[in-house]
């Protein structure tokens, strides 16, 4: 069920992103006993961000599994559960720790349906907090979407707003195929918004046109969507009209929304927190260069992190690595006046 305006008005609640994840997981656990959660410290600790707090008391140790520290098997065991009919939601405590599970995600989960020619399926959700701006240092800050988005068989979502978190998490849990569900940890408590009541889904693969504009299209996702929006709103005052698109889904991605916007504004700026070379912005740019080249009045610009392994712990290093509404506004200005 997609979001409808009536849902919106019914009894929407204001939540932050943590609360939206939590509420959605809770509803899923209540309504479907095939849903179980497994990961490190998801039990008594209730996950390091308290997302699953008290779940173990209500749903028991069989459904809320505190796993050993062993990410390959967290995902691998969830794959087995999914093959046999459960709807596991595996948590990787921080996205930085997903690397050991790469084989199970890319080699196994993403290929289960394909390699068995449809006999077996893998309805699995892998949730993980990613991203920087929280002084997470070298190993608690990475973006991982570009390491996975090339992989057929996988779906990847990265919602930025609480209502999208709920709708896309519901869609991911309902999805018959494996979904990597990325939660930007800086937005966890920072971003609040109205969340419709009741069960609803937002289709995976649909972007959201957040703000209409005429001079420039900006595509982003995660934390930077909020900054892009802030920058775009500020530019309105300067008479620069920027259209802002929140991708929401990274695989599949929404061609129509992007192309329609670019064909209108004739300029494209892609903004992401992840580093540039081979990042998600590369594919977006390539798609536009293939499909709408002659609609462009300016080169396609990507505003991304520098190509260094990670942001540092020191504030100066984190600050240098991360973008900001001001830097995004500057890039918008530059491209709009190209």
């Amino acid at each position, binding site marked *: 069920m997609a979001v409808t305006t009536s849902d919106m008005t019914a009894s929407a609640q204001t939540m932050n992103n943590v609360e939206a994840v939590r509420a959605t997981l809770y509803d899923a656990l209540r309504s479907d006993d095939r849903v179980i959660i497994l990961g490190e410290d998801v039990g008594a600790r209730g996950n390091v961000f308290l997302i699953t707090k008290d779940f173990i008391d209500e749903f028991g140790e069989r459904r809320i599994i505190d796993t050993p520290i062993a990410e390959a098997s967290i995902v691998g065991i969830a794959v087995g559960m999914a093959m046999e009919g459960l709807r596991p939601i595996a948590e990787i405590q921080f996205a930085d720790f997903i690397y050991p599970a790469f084989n199970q995600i890319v080699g196994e989960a993403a290929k289960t349906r394909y390699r*068995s020619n449809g006999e077996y399926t893998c309805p699995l959700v892998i949730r993980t907090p990613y991203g920087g701006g929280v002084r997470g240092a070298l190993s608690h800050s990475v973006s991982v979407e570009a390491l996975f988005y090339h992989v057929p068989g996988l779906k990847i979502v990265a919602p930025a707003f609480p209502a999208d978190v709920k709708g896309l998490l519901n869609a991911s849990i309902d999805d018959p195929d494996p979904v990597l569900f990325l939660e930007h940890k800086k937005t966890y408590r920072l971003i609040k918004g109205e969340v419709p009541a009741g069960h609803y889904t937002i289709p995976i693969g649909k972007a959201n046109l957040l703000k209409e504009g005429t001079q420039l299209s900006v595509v982003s996702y995660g934390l930077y969507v909020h900054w892009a929006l802030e920058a775009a709103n500020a530019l309105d005052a300067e008479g620069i009209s920027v259209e802002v698109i929140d991708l929401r889904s990274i695989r599949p991605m929404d061609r129509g929304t992007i192309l329609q916007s670019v064909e209108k504004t004739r300029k494209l700026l892609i903004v992401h927190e992840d580093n540039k070379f081979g990042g998600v912005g590369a594919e977006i740019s390539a798609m536009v260069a293939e499909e709408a080249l002659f609609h462009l009045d300016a080169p396609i610009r990507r505003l991304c992190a520098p190509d260094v392994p990670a942001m540092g712990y020191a504030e100066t290093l984190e600050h240098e690595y991360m973008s900001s509404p001001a830097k995004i506004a500057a890039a918008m200005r530059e491209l709009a006046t190209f």
Partner: protein
Amino acid sequence: MSVKTTTALDRRGLSDDQLRRLFANMLLQRQLDNRGFQLNRQGKVPFALGSEGHEALQAGAALAFERGKDVLAPYYRDLGLCLGVGLTPYEIMLSIFARAGDHNGGRQFPNHYSSKSLGILSFSSILAAHIPHAVGAAYVIAYRGEVGRAVLCTCGDGTTSEGEWHESVNFASIHRLPVVFLVENNLWAISTPLSKQMAQPEIWKRAAGYGMPGKRFNGFDPIETYACVKEALDRARSGGGPTLLEGMCYRFLAHSTDDNDMTYRTKEEVVERRKNDPVQRFEALLIEGGVMTRDDATAMKQEVLAQTNDATDRAEAMPFPQAHDLYANVYEGAWEPWQ
């Protein structure tokens, strides 16, 4: 422990019929194995991989498996095990020929057995990657409280070196899951001998570190194998938790048609091991023990050959997958990365 020679028939309560079924499975394995290699030599298929030396182990284990209840998480060496739980020679041949009707749609190498209706999990070529799946499947059985069901999960000796093996066995033990980890120890991993795979050569001894029972048995003896696997499966089925089993056997053939084992082991070693050929030995035991006559054995061999011929012909006559089949079953429904 080297593989012992069984000298007299100790039937451990098995009926004549069961004993003959064990033997028939072993014969069929060998015949189908040969066929794969033959077809490869004839240039009809690019690849074959055989299980000679594993026949007794797999026949015995398959007999302990309860069809329609248990789940099997096999690996590529498990021809006999998969035949034993219900895959047909025809299905095997479809996969060897990569024909359209194959369970995997001709996508995977042969020997990548899988059948949802038989409870055979699908696995990839990535060693040990299926072990956590087996544990997940066992979790589902426990979660649903389905007493009387268990998962049988196999792998080779070399595969125990993978991290995913460790993680999975550990998890199964913590949750006392209904799963039996059966290691088919044939002493080699392609060219790597067991001594380069681990410092002490007894895999079953790792069980204690995980707090689960461990046992080694003679995998050249199908009856001993049956008894050990059955005991472990029964324990699992009744809530007693997992077991680590190590069946000693030997790989008589090269790793696959792509391998030349004479680059890393001697002919003498193989000849010596062949003296205990489990198929010949079991045949002799069954005849000595009066379970069947020499003529029965001959008839069974002919029957197995006929089955193999028939399966070969029927499978070879089937069409290849179609080019457009490449695009099916990426996701449920038709998804493109750009929607």
